[in-house]
């Protein structure tokens, strides 16, 4: 059975803009799936529909086999959610937040008390759990929200930008907790993020979403290796056409992608970056440089890296995925 299925989902807030455009997606159980995309791509809208907060304009979606529109009540019983913004009552203690949450899901008192102890241990909030939430740091609030989502043993956990606004240390902690959870329990997690490292660190499956369209859906490894074993990044100026044509003749080139983001940015997938770098530079100098004429290509910067989801994103959308 699939934990999440989405068929031809559309959502528009005004007549001319589609927030979600013909989205199709299936996520098997016990996976961590990351929806990666820039702000405004439609990630939160997708999550809002799956968590029964928004009605779709057309199309359908099921969570644990329940339709998100017609069987919203059953969907709600099976999910845990954390939202992009921190939504905690500042005048309650951490324990009260978790307890009230458990009561809304009709958990018996005894079970709630035990679960709170377990949850607090998981996210290391022992010291703070009886303090008012308004005294918590941003990282502590995120951790409390994470376990509030987990409190009621959901089958599917939705995390909307779970580490937004956190420093690297706190972000790594949240990632650790999610890994730990994954080790302990069978749980499907769907998260959205605009941090590619987050998708790489956590997810078994990645969907790249841009302008409401799913432009890729695969494992992080498969997405990345389709670019080649290594990626050579070249930033330059002038006319790259002769250079590009020469590059394409080479047998070991797996992928070339050009964008004009900051000057001319070339992304060249190769089988072995360190070995091919000198040849590429040589090729560039034969197709430019010597006479310095305007319509020839000059390299300003060149580097070799393991390909990342960021490179995949650039290739698929023509734009860099920046942390904003």
């Amino acid at each position, binding site marked *: 059975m699939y934990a999440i299925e989405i068929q031809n989902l559309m959502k528009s807030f005004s007549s001319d803009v589609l927030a979600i455009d013909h989205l199709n997606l299936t996520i098997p159980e016990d996976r961590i799936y990351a929806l990666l995309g820039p702000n405004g791509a439609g990630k939160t809208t997708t999550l809002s529909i799956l968590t029964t907060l928004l009605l779709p304009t057309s199309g359908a979606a099921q969570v644990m086999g329940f339709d998100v529109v017609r069987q919203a009540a059953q969907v*709600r*019983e099976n999910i845990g959610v954390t939202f992009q913004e921190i939504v905690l009552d500042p005048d309650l203690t951490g324990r009260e937040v978790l307890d009230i949450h458990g009561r809304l899901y009709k958990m018996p008192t005894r079970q709630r008390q035990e679960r709170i102890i377990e949850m607090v241990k998981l996210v290391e909030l022992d010291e703070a759990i009886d303090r008012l939430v308004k005294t918590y740091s941003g990282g502590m609030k995120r951790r409390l929200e994470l376990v509030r989502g987990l409190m009621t043993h959901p089958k599917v956990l939705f995390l909307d930008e779970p580490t937004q606004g956190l420093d690297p240390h706190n972000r790594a902690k949240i990632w650790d907790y999610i890994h730990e959870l994954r080790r302990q329990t069978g749980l499907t997690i769907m998260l959205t993020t605009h941090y590619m490292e987050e998708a790489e660190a956590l997810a078994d499956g990645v969907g790249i979403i841009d302008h409401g369209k799913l432009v890729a859906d695969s494992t992080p490894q498969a997405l990345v290796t389709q670019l080649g074993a290594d990626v050579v990044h070249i930033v330059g100026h002038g006319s790259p056409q002769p250079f590009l044509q020469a590059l394409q003749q080479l047998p070991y080139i797996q992928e070339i992608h050009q964008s004009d983001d900051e000057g001319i940015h070339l992304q060249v997938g190769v089988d072995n970056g360190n070995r091919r770098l000198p040849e590429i530079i040589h090729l560039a100098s034969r197709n430019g440089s010597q006479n310095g004429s305007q319509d020839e290509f000059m390299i300003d910067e060149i580097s070799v890296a393991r390909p990342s989801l960021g490179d995949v994103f650039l290739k698929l959308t023509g734009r860099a995925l920046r942390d904003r």
Partner: protein
Amino acid sequence: MVEASVTLWQKHMLKFIRNPEEPLGMLLQPILWVVLFGVGMRALVGGVAPNVGDYLTFMLPGIITLTALGGAVTSGASLLDERLRGIIKEYLVAPIPRLSILSGNALSTVTKALLQALLILILGWLMGARLNSNILSVLAGLLALGVYTVGFAGIALSVAARVRSNLGYHGLIFLLNLPLLFASNALYPLATLPRWMQFLAWINPTTYVIDSMRLLIYNGSNTFSLGLSAAILVIFAALGMWLAYSSFKNVVST
């Protein structure tokens, strides 16, 4: 439904007790109305107003109602705050009826209104407004207040569900709050009013809760039969909550 309402009611009460400004304001407001306004009006109107007996006793039900209206406004503001901050989403994704989010809030409004009413009754008694010796009758009067408060809380919640900002909320509520009080029998006997104002008072549910409280709590004279007042108040409460529910439902799932 009941379980979720009670849970959310307890949460509101917990926050209420924990936040010292709100209970303090809630205590001070009735004291100001009774001691300053009530005493002043009693001295001014005492000898002049016909057929009302002691003016303080006459206007206490109005003060109780005004205070309850103030409480409902605060509760609406708390829903608005939860909505604007997104706290409401925690409840919207939980397997609880949407209505319980509203009823938990309205229940806490009623609780606060009844606490304030008790305080006003005690203050009034200290200042010579004698209560009905039949305690059940007094309780019935408070019940009428509770039902009325549900209705107005519904209106406040409906506004809170629709407006986009705090400023908009208070602007709109202000337009409702004072007319409900002034265009009623709260401060003056109906018979002394010009026709058009009597008409406004007749269609104003506030008139009926005050009329019943005068009879039930202070053993005063009533203009309308208790049955009519009860029916109108129950309809008002039901309409108020229905209005809140339909506004809320529209806003949260588009």
